[in-house]
């Protein structure tokens, strides 16, 4: 789903080429950053193991598309087509993500973490199967086309990418503020307590399963919203765009590289892994031919390697989680950069 969006790298030589590429790149990063923040709520804060991110992106994207598209025309068959405003579609996408999280969470959140992982990866597979197979639901493998753009009628097509970039960056900022607010609240402290030691949290009188569910649903809603943003950005979605590799594993890599358990880490990870991934095509032409053709597979290999390497040697990621103490305590005043320096200087030991 990710590949489609970036301009062909040959234009890069010129300044306007750099500009073109950057606008597309940062728009992508903003949307993926929102997804990573959603995963950070689930995994980073609560330890809920979601391997089916693709499923949440998919329901968000499809719900929003079906709410905003016109009714199905000739040679198409899909439900709804209500022609509602795009903003309603976004909200619908978020709601769909939340509902999906609730439905998956009901039977599985009480179980051990790896069972939840299996259930969520299975949900992504089943949704792809249904979308591909079910006649008259979402136009099957042909996908949905011509998904309307947010404010697309008011802006010149040539300037639209700026509107898009601004929209996505504002959305990322809003989601960032939202997750920061909720995780700094007492509710967020309970989540971390559950993640670190569920038995202790229970002993302290917290019903941990409802908290896990709330966190899973909030993360699901954020992912659904990001999926909706994505759908209106690309204009065309098909079931196979939401693969496990790009829809799920890519996001995990971003969170692990950035550092799970803090929001800045999630965004930094998205930027770093995203630049690595989308930047690879830029250097492809300068590589020897044999390497050039294999570069996309090598890049995939490197993504797997990044995850394993970070888990082994830098388990806290580039921006380690801040110790959850009072913000008036001395260490809390250190900036993320300070902590990064301390880490590179060999300050903190890996847990």
């Amino acid at each position, binding site marked *: 789903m990710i590949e489609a969006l970036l301009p062909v790298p040959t234009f890069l030589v010129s300044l306007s080429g750099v500009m073109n590429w950057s606008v597309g790149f940062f728009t992508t990063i903003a949307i993926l950053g929102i997804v990573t923040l959603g995963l950070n709520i689930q995994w980073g804060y609560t*330890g809920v*193991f979601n*391997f089916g991110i693709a499923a949440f992106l998919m329901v968000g994207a499809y719900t929003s598309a079906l709410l905003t598209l016109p009714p199905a025309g000739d040679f198409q068959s899909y439900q709804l087509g209500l022609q509602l405003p795009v903003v309603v579609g976004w909200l619908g996408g978020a709601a769909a993500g939340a509902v999906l999280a609730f439905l998956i969470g009901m*039977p*599985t959140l009480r*179980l051990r*973490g*790896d*069972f939840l*992982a*299996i*259930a969520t*990866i*299975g*949900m992504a*597979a*089943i949704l792809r*199967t*249904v979308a*591909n*197979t079910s006649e008259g639901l979402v136009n099957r493998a042909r996908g949905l086309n011509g998904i309307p753009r947010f404010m697309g009628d008011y802006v010149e097509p040539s300037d639209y990418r700026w509107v898009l970039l601004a929209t996505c960056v504002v959305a990322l900022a809003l989601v960032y503020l939202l997750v920061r607010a909720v995780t700094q609240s007492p509710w967020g402290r309970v989540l971390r307590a559950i993640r670190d030691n569920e038995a202790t949290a229970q002993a302290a009188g917290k019903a941990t399963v409802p908290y896990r569910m709330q966190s899973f649903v909030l993360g699901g809603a954020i992912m659904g919203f990001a999926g909706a943003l994505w759908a209106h950005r690309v204009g065309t979605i098909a079931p196979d765009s939401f693969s*496990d*590799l790009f829809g799920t*594993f890519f996001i*995990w*890599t971003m969170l*692990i590289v950035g550092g799970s358990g803090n929001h800045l880490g999630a965004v930094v990870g998205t930027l770093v892994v995203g630049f690595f991934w989308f930047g690879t095509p830029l250097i492809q032409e300068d590589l020897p031919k044999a390497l050039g053709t*294999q570069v996309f*597979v*090598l890049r*995939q*290999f490197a*993504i*797997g*390697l*990044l*995850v*394993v390497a970070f*888990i*082994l040697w830098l*388990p806290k990621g580039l921006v380690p989680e801040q110790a959850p103490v009072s913000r008036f305590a001395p260490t809390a005043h250190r900036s993320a950069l300070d902590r990064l320096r301390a880490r590179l200087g060999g300050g903190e030991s890996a847990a």
Partner: protein
Amino acid sequence: MTEFAQLLVVGVVVGSIVGLGAMGLTLAFGILKFANFAHGDMMTLGMFLAYAVYTRLDGTAMGPFSVGLAMVPAMLIAMAGVGLVAASVDQTVYRRLRRRGSASITMAIASLGVAIMVRAVIQLIWGPTPVRYATGINVAWTLPFGLRMRPDQVLIVIAMFALAVGLYLLLFKTRLGKAMRATSDNPALADISGIDTERIRAATWMIAGALIAVAGVMFGVQSQLKFDAGFEFLLPMFAAVILGGVGNPWGALAGGMVVGISQEVSTLWIPTGYKTAVPFVLLTVMLIVRPRGLFGPKG
């Protein structure tokens, strides 16, 4: 009725492949204590290793089968190869995490990283285009009651039985098997009883790798080899493992049969496109009703 019986036969064949893989997956799950998401891609590695060897040997078909005797050494090399790869990954990745006392979830994430790497390597070496062990058609035998079964499919079911018996003998008639069962039940107790649990873990990876390699080869014999073919089996295998109860190889084998048969027979009532969703539905029902598995211990 014939239609049902025919689907049942196909279901047993699919179930054999799923069950073979699930036996290894559940052994590793029970002894290593984490869900190994790289198991599906190890299956792909097995089928391609056998392909590499088989195509270098004299590949004439034997009797009614589509592959020849050269598949025997090819499969043995694939079994050893996948076992070695799995054991070396354990040495370089999972062992460090174990020593550090990492959560099983961390290892599961690492295993997904390993899965992506293995798949990329397979794509690098063998390319993205599907290949086959042998060309030509495998003429089906007609069994009593008008059932039809291809010789290759008979081979698959026989391989499943042979390996299940072999695994039984290994687990219950050898010291290694006894030590493996002890490690699975209680690793700490096994450790202080003088069992070298690290050696047991290495042996477990070798065995799980060998089993999944056979599953890969058996799948390859009746289908085409593609770099993501094994990953498609990951969910059915997990469904079989959970149906049978984690750590129970016979449960996994039975679970594999349930998955394979229900998947095929379901096409009597639902469109064929949905059949891949059937194992997952089974899995979900199982997680709600009886998460310890069909044959799991009480409580």
